[in-house]
């Protein structure tokens, strides 16, 4: 077998579909880097997807996401399923480097045959929103099911990534703050179900009560997810002992079933497709606007005019030029 570096994208895709992990890993690298190869991978994979249940898992740092994922995926592997995890951690905005530590908590899952890929956010605007769907597609065509996308629920992009899945799980823990905090966090609104982790702590009952209250209010004001199939289930877990993890797995499976029965799965995937097109478009527009601004300040003819007008006026002038003459 030729080394992965010597093979074309279609050859790698065929190998990945045949279960070759190294081919899958290299395709993930191509998608993560973006550019021509990423487009080739998208071209070669997008018609073959749709078999995997895509699950988003998010929550505050230290809430036990990785530990929970490890126990959960080991159970899935024991049931004969082929789970994969895409674990996203932030890059340093200063150096572009990152410490990706999720595997430390998931050593037993690796040993049980779970495929884990760590990914840094790599800072570039919207990069995560571009790369994650493409990487999920690669894992999908490679036969993994379910695919768990784990992110730290701190930024809007992470929340969006979680929302762009079939089933969004939000992990909360005791000591996170009271009901007011729960309402503040936009992250709670995307949840299809909640895991109250570390629920062996005495104040876990308070978290559950606050979540129930929040869900009651969402129902009253109609501010839940528009495509929700049911009121989100709340599952109590203790990841370190495995308590409640089987219930969480059941609740996640039930959610998929409910989506299918309600005919909402395809609708959700359609929304996801639109969001992805928009992410790509925004990426292109951002690049074009950065170039236009550089040109406006750089070219002698433009520079004098630019110096003489308010920034908003310059922007509108550039926007008109971009939209009527996209090549410039």
């Amino acid at each position, binding site marked *: 077998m030729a*080394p992965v*570096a010597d093979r074309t994208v279609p050859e790698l895709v065929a190998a990945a579909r045949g279960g070759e*992990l*190294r081919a899958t*890993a*290299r395709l*993930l*690298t191509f998608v993560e*880097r973006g550019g021509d190869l990423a487009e080739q991978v998208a071209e070669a994979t997008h018609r073959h997807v749709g078999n995997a249940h895509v699950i988003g898992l998010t929550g505050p740092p230290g809430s036990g996401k990785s530990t929970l994922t490890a126990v959960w995926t080991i159970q899935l592997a024991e049931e004969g399923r082929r789970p994969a995890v895409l674990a996203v951690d932030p*890059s*340093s905005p200063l*150096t*572009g*480097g*990152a*410490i*990706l*530590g999720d*595997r*430390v908590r998931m*050593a037993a899952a*690796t*040993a049980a045959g779970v*495929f*884990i*890929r*760590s990914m*840094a956010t*790599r*800072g570039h605007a919207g990069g995560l929103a571009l790369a994650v769907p493409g990487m999920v597609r690669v894992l999908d065509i490679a036969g993994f099911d379910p695919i768990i996308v784990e992110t730290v629920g701190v930024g809007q992009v992470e929340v969006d990534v979680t929302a762009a899945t079939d089933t969004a799980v939000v992990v909360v823990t005791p000591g996170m703050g009271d009901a007011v905090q729960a309402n503040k966090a936009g992250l709670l609104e995307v949840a299809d179900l909640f895991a109250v982790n570390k629920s062996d702590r005495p104040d876990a009952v308070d978290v559950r009560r606050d979540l129930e209250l929040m869900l009651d209010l969402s129902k009253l004001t109609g501010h839940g997810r528009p495509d929700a199939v049911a009121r989100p289930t709340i599952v109590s877990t203790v990841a370190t002992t495995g308590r409640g993890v089987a219930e969480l797995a059941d609740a996640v499976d039930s959610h998929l079933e409910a989506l299918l029965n309600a005919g909402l799965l395809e609708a959700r995937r359609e929304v996801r497709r639109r969001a992805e097109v928009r992410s790509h478009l925004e990426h292109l527009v951002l690049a074009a606007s950065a170039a236009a601004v550089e040109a406006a300040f750089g070219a002698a003819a433009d520079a004098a005019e630019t110096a003489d007008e308010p920034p908003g006026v310059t922007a509108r002038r550039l926007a008109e030029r971009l939209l009527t003459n996209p090549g410039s």
Partner: protein
Amino acid sequence: MADATPVRVVLAKLGLDGHDRGLKVVARMLRDGGMEVIYLGLRQTTSSIIDAVEQEDADVVGISMLNAGHLTLGPLMVDALADAGLDVPVVIGGIVPDEDLPTLAAAGVAGVLGPGSPAADVVACVRAAVAGRGR
């Protein structure tokens, strides 16, 4: 400034050796050098490291040893990667006497970093190891 595509490093303690403070410091140095560090932590085996290298499509492996096992475990790691068909260089960090350096180099270890190595040297050593691979 950040690389267009950051170097991906798998960092681990190989074998029975519970001292990981050095490895954590190295993880920070490499992160600050713009690399993505896939941190495996304590008590890893050649096979758990190979699983990680394979799934993460890593460019280089860094193993830390403070237990005098480098002459056994260093070549073991290099050979295990080669046997698995993975063309990935190995850098060792830890307490390595000077007289062992030629043996490790002959065994295919791409670089050795001793105690007190400055961050710039650590980053340069890993970069040099990856540059030898070229992909």
